[in-house]
């Protein structure tokens, strides 16, 4: 994997350094898209986005790229056409020459510029990406492509600006309640609930945020024989007997974008890619391993991102509808006041597991595209946490990702299975609507 990255970088350096030469060879189109994708993830990590907000960035950027590049292959249908809320998309002018990889990059970065904050870094990425084309394309073809990408981006932005994101910024903060069984802020920082109104974001495929309601979680019960007590006991027992393997799994899939660590008055944030970013990375691996064409790569990213986006809307709607308590709250109260989960508890309600839902949907989509037995080495997190793991299939990876939350001490088993169920249903809906 490192070699791939190196090659691209080398390429950029070499090509970027010789832009005065005529008739350069165009770089591999799929590599360009992979590189764009990785740049975006780095930007998201740096700018600090919550996982749902990150999924929104992935969705709009990759849909923009796909909408542009699909014109490179006449057989490739528009995905956006089948999604809710988009305006009519522009078509290329038959009399003009385009490079649709460049157009896709432009659409991708223009949308990203509206969603991320580090504009200088983004500009650097953009310039480097476009430089690859500058020497290889005629000025006319270059500007045609840029303009086409830009027009697509503008249309995407119309949908983006009316998806309720802005409105939900002005709504009230959320602190849960002290009632039994209800979510309340948790140690160490006791933050208010993140994105309590994410369920109001307009979905792309689902008819509503609660289309896949998992039903209510088990009721509160102090009785040691009760389901509620037993599931807390399970999290606790697993937590105090964690094997190294389980710890590794918990940390490998943590993908918490922002953990503030305190050393006296000194503070240091540990930033990681979001769970969505992790699965976008797995999508890259699938493409590279199969040497997928640029068009297929763009489709892979778009479908994965839609799966993540829909998954987050569904699961955050569920989370705040049931506002279910986190294990740490109950365990500290009833079982062991000193117990700490292996992972920092994220600041939002427990039920159901976000990881399980979004990996359920993403893995379902990827499996449909790349098969049931796609074995791969997941190196997508190397750059952030220096860990890699091997999987026999996307489903296996998603199941491990799901159970990692139980090992992490931040979810009940029930939430994993119910979350994954919803995720798979979302995946199936996407396949049904977009891949048939």
């Amino acid at each position, binding site marked *: 994997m490192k070699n791939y990255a190196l090659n691209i970088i080398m390429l950029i350096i070499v090509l970027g350094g010789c832009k005065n030469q005529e008739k350069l060879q165009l770089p591999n189109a799929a590599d360009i898209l992979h590189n764009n994708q990785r740049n975006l993830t780095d930007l998201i990590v740096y700018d600090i986005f919550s996982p749902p907000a990150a999924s929104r960035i992935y969705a709009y950027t990759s849909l923009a790229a796909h909408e542009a590049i699909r014109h490179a292959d006449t057989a490739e249908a528009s995905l956006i056409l089948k999604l809710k809320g988009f305006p009519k998309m522009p078509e290329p002018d038959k009399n003009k020459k385009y490079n649709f990889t460049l157009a896709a990059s432009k659409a991708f970065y223009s949308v990203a510029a509206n969603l991320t904050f580090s504009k200088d870094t983004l500009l650097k990425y953009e310039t480097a990406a476009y430089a690859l084309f500058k020497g290889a394309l005629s000025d006319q073809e270059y500007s045609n492509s840029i303009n086409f990408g830009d027009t697509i981006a503008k249309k995407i932005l119309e949908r983006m600006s009316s998806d309720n994101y802005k409105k939900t910024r002005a709504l009230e903060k959320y602190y849960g309640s002290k009632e039994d069984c209800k979510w309340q802020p948790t140690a160490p920082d006791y933050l208010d609930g993140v994105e309590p109104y994410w369920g109001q974001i307009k979905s792309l495929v689902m008819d509503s945020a609660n289309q896949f309601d998992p039903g209510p979680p088990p009721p509160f019960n102090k009785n040691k024989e009760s389901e509620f007590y037993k599931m807390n006991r399970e999290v606790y027992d697993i937590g105090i007997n964690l094997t190294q393997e389980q710890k590794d799994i918990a940390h490998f899939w943590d993908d918490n974008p922002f953990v503030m660590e*305190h050393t006296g*008055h000194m503070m*240091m944030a540990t930033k990681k890619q979001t769970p969505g970013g992790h699965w976008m990375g797995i999508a890259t691996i699938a493409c590279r391993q199969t040497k997928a064409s640029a068009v297929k790569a763009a489709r892979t990213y778009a479908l994965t991102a839609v799966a993540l986006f829909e998954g987050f809307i569904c699961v955050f709607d569920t989370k705040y509808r049931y506002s279910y308590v986190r294990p740490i709250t109950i365990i500290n109260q009833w079982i062991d006041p000193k117990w700490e989960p292996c992972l920092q508890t994220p600041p939002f309600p427990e039920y159901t597991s976000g990881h399980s839902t979004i990996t359920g949907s993403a893995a379902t989509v990827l499996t449909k595209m790349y098969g049931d037995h796609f074995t791969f080495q997941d190196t997508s997190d190397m750059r952030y946490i220096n860990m890699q793991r091997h999987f026999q299939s996307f489903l296996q990876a998603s199941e491990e990702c799901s159970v990692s939350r139980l090992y992490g001490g931040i979810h009940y088993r029930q939430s994993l299975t119910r979350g994954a169920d919803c995720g798979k249903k979302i995946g199936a809906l996407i396949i049904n609507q977009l891949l048939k």
Partner: protein
Amino acid sequence: MKRLIIILCAGLTVVWLFSCKSKESQGYVAPDAPLFVKLDSSVTGVGFSNTVADGQEYNILSYRNFYNGGGVALGDINNDGLADIFLTANQGESKLYLNKGSFKFEDITAASGIKSKRGWRTGVTMADVNGDGWLDIYVCNSGDIKGDNKENELYINQHNNKFKEEAKAYGLNDIGFTTHASFFDYDLDGDLDCYILNNSFVDVRKFDLEEVRKVRDTLGGHKLMRNDNGHFTDVSEQTGIAGTKIAYGLGVSVSDVNGDMYPDIYVSNDFYEKDYLYINQRNGTFKDELPERMGHISSSSMGADVADLNNDGYMDIVTTDMLPEDETRVKTLTRFEQYHLENMKYRASFHYQFPQNSLQWNQGDGHFSETAFMSGIAATDWSWGALSFDFDNDGYKDVFISNGVYKDISDMDFAEFLADKKNVESIVTKNGKFDFRNFLAYIPSFKLPNYAYVNQRNFTFLNKAYELGLGEPSFSNGVAYADLDNDGDMDLVVNNINAPCFVYRNEADKKAGNHFLKIGFTGKGLNPFGTGAWVNLYSNNEKQVLQNIPVRSFQSCVDNKLIFGLGKNNKIDSLEVIWPDLTRQVMYNVPADKEIRLDQKNADRKFIPGKVSPALFTDKTATLLTNAVVHKENRYSDFDGERLIPYMLSTQGPKLAIADVNKDGLQDIFVGAAAGDTAKLLIQTKKGFIKTVQPVFNADKDMEDAGAVFFDVDKDGDQDLLVVCGGYQYDQGSSLLSARLYINDGNGKFTKGRMPDVATNASCVKIADYDKDGYPDVFIGGRAITGKYGLPGRSFLLHNIKGQLKDETPEILKSPGMVTDAVWTDINKDTYPDLMLVGDWMAVTYFINNKGIITSAKSIPNSAGLWNCISAADIDKDGDIDFVLGNWGQNSRFKASVEKPMEMYVNDFDKNESIESLITYYWPDSRSHLYNSKEDITSQLPYLKKKILQYKDYAGKSINDIIGNDLLSKSFRLSIQTLSSSVLVNEGNNNFKLLALPAMCQASPVFTVILNDFDKDGNLDILTGGNLFDLKPDIGRLDANASSLLQGDGKGSFKWMPSLQSGLQLKGQLRDAALITVNNKQYVLIARNNDAILFLDFK
């Protein structure tokens, strides 16, 4: 190639681009002939420097107090009459310098036998531990160095400039992370006991809401050690000293704060643990009474000092914290807590803590009012020692604060964008070995000038560090004073990190021309230096107090001789010394300008606690009410919806209305309720008050009462009731904001009356027959539009047409602003009542009533403030009506003046159909900046993250830089010029003059005033009521002055009466007050938010 990867990795790029910021102080030029002259080591021979270097294993990352620095102890170790110097070095060699006179010192460390090399040296104390008449030296050790011994050391004086370490024999070889220790006689048995101040072993990774603080840590906790015939025994548990696992002690100050002469202890704790105020229970035990005695405290309390700063004879307390003065540093270094967290911590008994220095004024009985912002000393950056002494002997104690941290480790850009520990670690591991020191170079480092506050004698201080010669930028920690050259003024020694210590010679003797009295002590038995002796000095009708407690400030210890500054007066009327055994001696006609020695054996009297003369007001609630009448506020957080507003508008109640509703000749009381509670009507009978049941009130319980008035709307001879609604939780237009009219059946039973639909978030309701048709009319003040703070509320004028109210609001009265209070009064003397309004972000505005038609509106120039209330009376006896107005006060970051107004811009800045209100004020850099933190601004206006991703992108900017002139010019804009509660003096001819009320009355917002001649001297006095708790934690908590009595002189001037004298030592948030007659006697009735109503009797 590896390097290329790094460079191309987003997010990590910055690590390499971030420039190392380190400003040296080479630009510093000392002022000409300052009061304090810094003497070079070539002159003094004191070449000490506390050199601290981060190591690979042991550094700021592995030890949180790595940059806390060393201490200073001053005292005469060889009894030659000259104070000597001991300085601790954290890593290097601590030094003992012998004073040879004339500011020449000799390093005798090597010969003295002091080899302090254990652990990490911190505080130092000179005390005669074994009572042999020679000062011993106690060196505290800390530091998390593997395999190192951090036992504290006790160097016993061998009487020949030599010392022998005997901590173990005395039982003082504590192994905690000791910061400091104070020796004093807590049980009054004649020997010195010891408080060992430790800094918890527990990592500051998180705070625990419930369990940890209850756990006693017998090794690392704070300890009180009782001196049992020369061996010290840990008596912490039996004496009530917490000794908790999470006490991060950084300061211990001993003194008597409640007038019984038993030593109390103030302990300042760093991080989330609160401070302790241990009140000596006079039975060998202590009780931490801080929560009952202090409204709020510093959050990361560092050093502290106890001294009487206003010469009222009571000990005040200063604690230091880390709040910078400079706007850029506030916005890049200071993380303010979230509101919900503040409340969670309070409920978990961490009390209210804010990142600011605290100045706690002793009200006389050990209850305190905190006014650091008003007093000008709240923000001195990352501070350590606070040291109060009289710089120039003018008779008032000043305050020196040492500050500076070697690396700005709280820099938020570093934390969020640079210091990704795991990232950096993993990258660097690829390159080779991870060494934290490489990384440290990227943390900014700024030397800071210390602060030297000169007492302005009006509860305020002015920083004159530079002018006084004390402003050289440094990283200063421990600091102590002593008269090193015996010339009658206090010289200063400051311990610095990575720079030579400062030795300052005070030239007050030559330059200030003030008189002094210097005092040494000869104590009895095992306390030969008289530690704990308290001296009262009376001269020129003023009282000064000093106490001989050498452990002060931070990790430091001052000389055991005291100096009283006498100003221009050289006559001392009397001098009283109270010894630790409560014997005392009084002397008269003591000569000034010399050193005297007080000897305990001359103490021929017993100390008897002074009798407090009866106060003007006394609380009679319990005798007038059998059951408390309590207002219950509903929990609602305005900040959850509007995170940029500085204070809540939903806690404005309760309001009172008083009238005889059942025509029995006795005044009855209406007390408004918050949403969810039922308003109360208390009927007065000969036997007391009876709560009546009024079903109509119960039906309206979801409404929040914001104002109420009794009047006879239908002229049927009884008192009807009009109640207006508020609460800031219901949207404009909600029926829960509709004003309600309740008609009296003549016997005090109320039914709903007909009203036009006037639904508004109201503040007040005021009655006057403005058209003189014989029917009383109604003005309803509009407080605000819910969710749109800043936009004017909707006000109403209801015309009473033969008993029917009709909305006839003239255009100019519909939206005059965020009205908070109003008064009908005839301003132009045409017998028609005119209407005067005050409001939040409003100028004082009056509306002239032209024979029944409200015509013009006039604003009094430069009178815009955050007004809460207005009352009218002729205070200067010149025949016209003057006004008293309650404002926000001066005790917060907010400042406003004509030249430097506070401003607010209101707009939907991010076009998401919700209104934001942006507030700016002038910071110490004389430029206007937003008050909000970067997190709050970017979470409310996410689009700004593009412009201000990092904290440094936000700091230093004006609102124009951030929002842009174009958008600002389209915004609704408000400006205010004064925050002082004031009197508005009517000078005739429509000329009015605003005059600020006395200082202490500005310590809190004033919500209600009563004008009455309380002291019966023939002149009107002012009783104020206020406080406001529900503020953004960035602003703090305004709890310092619930109520004050201001005595009027009949000429328009007022004098604040100390609260012990007035008896107005009230707590809570006062919202309304009124005079009421009960059993033919007048009382003051007080309504408090979320608290019981009170009846106060006055003489």
